[in-house]
């Protein structure tokens, strides 16, 4: 096994997902099969190869630092499940 149950639980914590007891074995097995497939990339020597982040090797274009949009606050807040006039509402974080 390239990935074990404990690691899967840790990944779930990092990914903000929960994995319940009845699924954990199956999820571990499926992630292990994916990681086994992924591992083939180690068959090739790549020491002097530059990583490719963008298929065109393009550099991030920066826009002019100027105002180009007006506030859509009301429209955007209206999309939330829970909001008041100015804020998104979440369960209490600080008592």
């Amino acid at each position, binding site marked *: 096994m390239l990935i074990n149950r404990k690691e899967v639980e840790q990944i779930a914590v990092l990914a903000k997902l929960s994995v319940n007891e009845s699924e954990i074995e199956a999820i571990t097995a499926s992630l292990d099969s994916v990681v086994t497939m992924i591992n083939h*990339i180690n068959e*090739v020597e*790549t020491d002097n190869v530059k990583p490719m982040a963008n298929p065109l090797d393009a550099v991030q274009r920066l826009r002019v630092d100027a105002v180009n949009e007006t506030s859509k606050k009301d429209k955007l807040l209206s999309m939330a499940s829970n909001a008041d006039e100015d804020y998104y509402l979440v369960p209490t974080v600080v008592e």
Partner: protein
Amino acid sequence: MNFNGIKSLSLALQSKQISVQELHDIYLTRQQTHAKNLNCLISKTPELAKTQIQSAQALIDSKQANMLTGIPLVHKDLFCTKDHQTSCGSRMLENFIAPYDATVVDNLNKAGMVTMAKANMDEFAMGSSNENSYFGAVKNPWNTHRVPGGSSGGSAALVAAGLAPIATGSDTGGSIRQPAALCGVTGIKPSYGRASRYGMVAFASSLDQAGVFARSAEDCSLVLSSMCSFDEKDSTSTQIAQEDFSQNLNQSIKGIKVGVVTEWMDSLPEDIKKTTFEAIKQLEELGAEIQEVVLPTAHLAVSAYYVIAPAECSSNLSRFDGVRYGYQCENPLDLNDLYVRSRTEGFGDEVKRRIMVGTWALSAGFYDAYYRKAQKIRRLIAQDFSKAFEKIDVIAAPVSPETAFEFNAKKDPVSMYQEDIYTIPSSLAGLPCMSIPIGLVNKLPVGLQLIGHNLQESTILNVAHQYQQATSFHTQIAEGYDA
């Protein structure tokens, strides 16, 4: 109505043989007859269509129309359509109403097209069978016990069934080409950076590209020309002038050099191999010179892709927190519970699997061994293509190792991922590529993939069009549907 391409529809509209409303109604009737059974639509957009029909007719009446004015269209449900549901095939966005139009949508609106509906798809464009949609799997019109391919399965199926002449799609690792092949329609993914990703729900940002499904290469070229544009709002948009991709369609392909990857051909099942070789033979008869090419690193493409795409997915999908928009769980105990339960209940199994694979690949201790390593493999694959294109103009290749398979046939994720072995390499290299129908095997469509060098959409469309002028496979339709 005898469908003979967008040009003839446009001519009928502009010569007043038919009104925009009447044309729309023909397709609406077909959707009412077949869409539910095929499950190819997630929502309909009648109010939007009503407004667009009126403005398209006004443009035609005042002789300001172009070839696309008044032509009905369905968008894959990952393109934001202002004030309409944009679900991305997910429970997470089931009730999401987009606050703006994607640039691709905006461009086609400006061309005067009429948006009729939003197409079903694999959740967040992750899948090769459409079985991952929260709204249920799409059925293949050629055999409703079989998958249409994915992730743009709804778009492919509805064009195959004649429910709209055009549908948009997106392709990250094969999501236009594979369903186009399995449903027997023509589909194109342009070069990375050609079509704006603004307003297209993100899966893997260095791979995602918008594209088109149609019944011919000619129709694809007409829509793609309007769809692609440089866009300030997409920082990876390629800064070049808009191009008319239909300009080279009628050129002869005599002398054009077509590369064939022997290793890929050898790996095909006999019946698909035979059909694919027949299509290549047809290109040769049209004057193309066939050459063997090798892509020495391409066999590692699926492995590298399943590091890069999930890594980008885990990063992109971290925006879904249940707070600002999208699904929120009921009665969260605290903030962490709100995040965790909203994501766990809002995402489906395949999306969660890819988020977890990506989180793992990007986590401490694995980043260099997997993510950077995969990016290095990506460069080797791109270099393989660049080297090949020094000697050839186009690669002719299979799209999929099999025809449409039955529902629930792929039990484990890795066997599903292998569906994209021939489509992923060109995606990693950001190249333009398309699928065209080349015949049937056991009454199911087979596609041929044409891959061009960067920004050479016109070249692959030229080859595809010339092939379609000499053959009629692209006009074949499944029994029970209208052309």
